[in-house]
């Protein structure tokens, strides 16, 4: 062999290095793609990228195997005329035919009833475009996957602090001293969080992880606090109670920056009970959280306008206003609410000893109080008070689906927001920090359509497909208060379902409830497998027919890069490109990759030509929009407005001349403006020359306290990020929720929930956080099904995406059910045995693995490792199908019929967040004679036209020669 010291990679073949953005998960790291003779030789992290700073994860490093996977689709396919749906009997058609087919069908629907077309996407990061398309088309039946992902986390915190974790904000681990992570194993924001946690630990920070399972990040926590699933709310409320009880809250912060001291009307007999007492004073027009509220001044012992200079209001007590109205500061109401939540109360619920709960509270409270940070940064607040410094309390939190994916998740996350608030950690150093465009008003401005008249033939939708209701009038319901969206989002069933309920789309469409649809377009969402609940039945619904022989869901279009399980059910398959073959924007209009210090957006630029006939979904939408002559895609003369997606991205403005478009960087004719400015024809080139990323670092004085930072808010308004420069007061007490509750109580003019839902709305729209047992447990015999079952995403596998990846699948080719040895002992099975996991809704057979790193009442497995036989380019004998399993089979998408409704979603009653982690199970040993394969099994999916030939026994990847063999 050649001496390696004399070997240089740059001398092997023709070398090119191109920069783009990763998409092996949703993290969006900057990458450098090194090509050798046109084949991918190496993908590494881009050292100049603000997000990942040069590092890359296991998935990102395996992009090569995604690019060259035999699971890839390469041709548009149409179900053969005589074939049944689900059999994967397809014929290749041209793109032109595919477009004609779609154009004809969609034009007809648009002219008749646009809501018969539904577009749901698994992918959040192009919502600005997919949502625009749906709105322009005129259908309200649009959402991305947020409803079954983590909408509780978004809604719970945005309705409390005006921002949330991940894309919206995060823990400032650079300055935190104590970091508490709850319900997070791995994360979407994965590389930045890994970077931050390791640096945090190296600096000597203390890291506590609260989780039923100790894996991933929890592994390196200084302390692991195992908790029973679905009880985080009880823990957080008990901690908050202890913090209040010991006086460890940040009083000054609460008074000035939250509604803690604001006076709430406290007279249950009145119709305005529970609303803030609104004083007569000037308010900004259109503002829905005006400042016309009162404090109780301790000196004059009477009411006074909030934020009156020099006034120190009462946080506690009960008072009577001069007009006789009994009032209490909302903090007093919070304190009263928390009285019941003692650590001793929480201990049996959470499985955490009361002394541990107290200690956690003391650690948080004392660290926040005694380790204050003061940065010499001058800033001015909204009330024109100038501050010499920015201060902070160095206790940071991070939480995700462990809290969110329960039917009590919204209130749990509200509780977390309240805890973070009483500790005084919002947008301050060492605590929680926002990322642009957050903070936004509570709630943000966009609203869903308000009634049936919003949907009209050949007309764009009146309202945003998704929005942020602040009162019952913002709901999208008919006269009877019944749903108008296919997924029943923004109805009284799930009023604040701000990300929709994708998990109920197929069931609802199949049942024709609230109405049947015609065409369902699924993009990158594996709704026949791991993205759906009740998989076995949903797969049947997809092929179910009316007595007349027509499919109940008449036309199903699937756009995907890979031969996923869902593709088998398509009538029309559109092959998407890989991430290395497309233009893409990670836009400020959607979910950008902003840093704490300012807005950041980024792009993907193709580094390879598309494989076969693959076409980016964005191009499909621009093409369809143009063919359907949707206004946004059409010139006044009816001609096509945009050549293609890159052209659309550069030239589209939210409204003519608004200066706001998809990309924030290098705007203006010459590229000298940012956030707002005229379209720049050379914008793509400028991104390409700048690592594919635009990063606007705010002045230091705009980087903190942004909810109340006058300079920042005015800057944000000037640059089109917010509509109001009003302070964004933290909602310790949620008047928004109280409005819905009053409506349910019949104390509010206007919309009321239908009779059957009144008690439900009244109960769950509590303006103060509270704990309740997850809904599913109430309908389940928890003696018979004593265990909670969870899934987690492994760090080397992004949901179902990576089983087609020859390298990543070697790490997780199949999965086990992890459980405490105590469960095995009690049920007579041993480590490694085949067991049945049974819920009231179904059962799966799998192998088990004993673990001491799991709370004994919990069983868990890696998510989406199990695959349908033959899918994803894998042989039918692949481990994924034979030894891998999905927990989805035993999770229901609906609750059992009860007094609130026959078909309510198995979701949070406030947000419609899928309650994946509520499921209760029992586990028992498989019989001796049972086959050693997982159950259920499905008929193998054949290789599709256009898919590569099977690779055979060996694969030796060497860039530059692989494709030539």
């Amino acid at each position: 062999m050649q001496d390696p010291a004399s070997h240089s990679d740059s001398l092997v073949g023709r070398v090119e290095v191109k920069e783009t953005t990763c998409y092996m998960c949703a993290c969006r790291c900057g990458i450098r793609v090194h090509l050798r003779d046109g084949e991918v030789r190496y993908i590494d992290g881009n050292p100049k990228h603000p997000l990942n700073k040069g590092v890359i994860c296991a998935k990102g490093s395996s992009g090569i195997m995604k690019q060259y996977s035999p699971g890839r689709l390469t041709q548009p396919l149409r179900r053969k005329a005589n074939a049944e749906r689900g059999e994967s009997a397809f014929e290749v058609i041209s793109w032109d035919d595919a477009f004609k087919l779609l154009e004809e069908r969609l034009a007809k629907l648009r002219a008749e009833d646009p809501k018969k077309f539904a577009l749901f996407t698994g992918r959040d990061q192009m919502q600005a475009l997919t949502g625009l398309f749906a709105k322009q088309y005129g259908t309200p039946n649009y959402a991305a996957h947020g409803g079954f992902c983590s909408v509780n986390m978004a809604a719970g915190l945005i309705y409390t602090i005006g921002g949330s974790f991940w894309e919206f904000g995060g823990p400032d681990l650079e300055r935190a001293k104590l970091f508490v992570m709850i319900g997070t194993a791995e994360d979407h924001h994965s590389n930045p969080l890994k970077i931050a946690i390791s640096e945090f630990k190296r600096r000597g920070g203390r890291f506590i992880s609260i989780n039923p399972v100790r894996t991933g990040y929890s592994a390196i926590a200084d302390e692991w606090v195992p908790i029973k699933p679905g009880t985080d709310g009880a823990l957080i409320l008990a901690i908050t109670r202890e913090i209040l009880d010991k006086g460890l809250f940040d009083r000054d912060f609460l008074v000035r920056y939250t509604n803690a001291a604001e006076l709430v009307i406290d007279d249950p007999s009145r119709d305005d009970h529970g609303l803030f007492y609104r004083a007569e004073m000037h308010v900004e027009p259109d503002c829905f959280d005006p400042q016309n509220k009162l404090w109780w001044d301790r000196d004059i012992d009477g009411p006074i306008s909030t934020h009156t200079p020099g006034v120190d209001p009462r946080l506690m007590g009960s008072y009577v206003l001069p007009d006789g109205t009994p009032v209490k500061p909302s903090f007093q109401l919070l304190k009263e609410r928390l009285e019941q939540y003692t650590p001793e109360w929480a201990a049996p619920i959470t499985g955490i000893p009361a002394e541990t709960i107290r200690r956690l509270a003391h650690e948080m409270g004392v660290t926040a109080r005694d380790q204050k940070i003061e940065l010499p940064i001058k800033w001015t607040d909204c009330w024109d008070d100038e501050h010499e410094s920015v201060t902070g309390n160095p206790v940071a939190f991070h939480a995700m689906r462990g809290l969110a994916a329960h039917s009590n998740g919204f209130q749990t996350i509200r509780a977390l927001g309240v805890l973070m608030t009483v500790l005084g950690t919002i947008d301050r150093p060492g605590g929680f920090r926002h990322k642009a465009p957050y903070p936004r008003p509570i709630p943000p401005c966009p609203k869903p359509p308000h009634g049936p008249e919003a949907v009209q033939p050949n007309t764009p939708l009146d309202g945003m497909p998704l929005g942020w209701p602040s009162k019952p009038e913002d709901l999208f319901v008919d006269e009877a208060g019944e749903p108008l969206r296919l997924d029943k989002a923004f109805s009284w069933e799930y009023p604040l379902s701000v990300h929709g309920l994708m998990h109920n789309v197929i069931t609802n469409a199949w049942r024709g409830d609230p109405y049947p649809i015609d065409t369902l377009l699924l993009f990158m969402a594996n709704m026949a497998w791991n993205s759906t609940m009740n998989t076995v039945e949903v797969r049947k619904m997809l092929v179910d027919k009316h007595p007349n022989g027509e499919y109940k869901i008449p036309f199903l279009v699937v756009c995907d890069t890979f031969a996923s399980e869902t593709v088998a059910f398509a009538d029309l398959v559109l092959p998407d490109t890989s991430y290395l073959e497309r233009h893409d924007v990670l836009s400020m209009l959607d979910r950008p990759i902003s840093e704490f210090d300012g807005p950041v957006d980024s792009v993907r630029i193709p580094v390879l030509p598309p494989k076969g006939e693959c076409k980016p979904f964005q191009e499909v939408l621009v093409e369809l929009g143009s063919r359907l002559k949707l206004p946004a895609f059409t010139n006044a003369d009816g001609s096509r407005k945009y050549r293609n997606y890159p052209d659309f991205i550069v030239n589209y403005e939210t409204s003519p001349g608004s200066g706001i478009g998809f990309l924030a960087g290098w705007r203006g004719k010459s590229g000298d403006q940012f956030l707002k400015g005229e379209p720049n024809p050379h914008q793509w080139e400028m991104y390409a020359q700048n690592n594919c990323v635009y990063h606007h670092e705010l002045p230091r004085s705009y980087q903190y306290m942004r909810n109340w930072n006058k300079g920042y808010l005015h800057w944000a308004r000037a640059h089109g990020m917010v509509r109001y420069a009003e302070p964004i007061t933290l909602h310790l007490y949620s008047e928004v929720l109280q409005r819905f509750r009053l409506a349910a109580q019949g104390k509010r003019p206007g919309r009321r929930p239908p009779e059957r839902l009144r008690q439900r709305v009244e109960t769950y729209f509590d303006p103060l956080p509270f704990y309740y047992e997850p809904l599913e447990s109430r309908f389940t015999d928890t003696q018979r099904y004593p265990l909670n079952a969870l899934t987690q995403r492994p760090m080397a596998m992004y949901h179902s995406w990576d089983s087609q990846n020859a390298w990543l699948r070697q790490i997780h080719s199949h999965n086990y059910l992890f459980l405490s040895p105590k469960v095995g002992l009690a049920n007579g099975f041993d480590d490694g045995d085949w067991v049945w996991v049974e819920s009231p809704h179904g059962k799966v057979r799998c192998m088990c693995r004993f673990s001491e790193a799991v709370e004994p009442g919990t069983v868990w497995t890696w998510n989406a490792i199990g695959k349908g036989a033959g899918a994803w380019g894998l042989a039918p004998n692949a481990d994924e199908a034979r030894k891998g399993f999905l927990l989805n089979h035993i999770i229901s998408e609906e609750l059992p019929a009860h007094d609130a409704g026959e078909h309510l979603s198995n979701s949070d009653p406030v947000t419609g967040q899928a309650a994946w982690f509520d499921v209760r199970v029992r586990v028992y040993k498989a019989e001796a004679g049972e086959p050693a394969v997982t159950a259920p099994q499905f008929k193998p999916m054949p290789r599709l036209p256009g898919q590569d030939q099977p690779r055979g026994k060996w694969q030796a990847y060497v860039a530059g020669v692989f494709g030539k063999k």
Partner: protein
Amino acid sequence: MHPAFSVIFLTTLIGAGQGLYLAMVTGQLYAIARFLPAQTDQFYAIGSLVALALLIAGLGASFFHLGRPERGWRAAAMWRTSWLSREVIILPLVMTLVFAYGVAHWFGWTQPLFQVGAALQVDLTLLLGVLGTVASLALFICTAMIYAAVRFIQEWHTPLTVSNFLFFGAASGFMLAAAYSAYIGNPLVTFYGTWAVILTLIALASRLAHLRRNVRLKYKSTVQTAIGVRHATVIQKAQGATGGSFNTREFFHGRSPVLVKQLRMIYIVLVFPLPVLLIGLSYLIGSSSLPITAFFIQFAGLLIERWSFFAEARHPQNLYYQSVA
């Protein structure tokens, strides 16, 4: 360890070959010393050619062990440090000497070359026989040391491995010599049979001592030293690959402990008491087929013994490959 059939056959076949060769030379020495009647040159020639055939078969088996047999010649390079390299050098040397010994007998090159002392007439066959014997013993040592020198596999890292290989090889070789004698109706069957029984009993003692030692073996490495964590309870959950790796294929036999135990009992019976009884029986009833049976039974037992030798060996790397999840 995973018992590779190539290595099982290599070691047992060349062991028997070397043993047979030693038996031939021993027979010749006894004849020179007049303890035994002189045999025809053909007897030695055919015996050593059979030995050569076994050596060649063993060498052939060894090639199946190599990933790149075409480069096998390179293995002679590192004789200063590698017992494998030494074996690779000595095996052809032994084969050459065995071949030469057989050829010398075949062609009757027995004219004395020189005389040692008063009576010992040294001819070419004797010279080659002695040289071959020395080489054969060296080969036994090299082969055994390949295993005994691996200090990480504590079951193997003992002089008993060398004595096992030596006495198993010698016993099976003498057993074969007895069978050979019986087959051609040569009265040496008693001589070889007796030696075979003696060698078998020595091998039994050596192997039992080895088993006894291994039962009491205290492993130097534990999962605690493997990952450097002090705690009584350390249990592996995942090894980083769910579909197996070289490490799970090469170092694990993949059979149940029960099977390993059963096979141990079987080889102990096949290698030791059964052949000894058959040889004894053959003396009593004067059967010529029983020594032949005895050899084949013992050789079959040795194949199982060698399988066991690998299967019983626990490599410390296995501490890193305990569980899949």
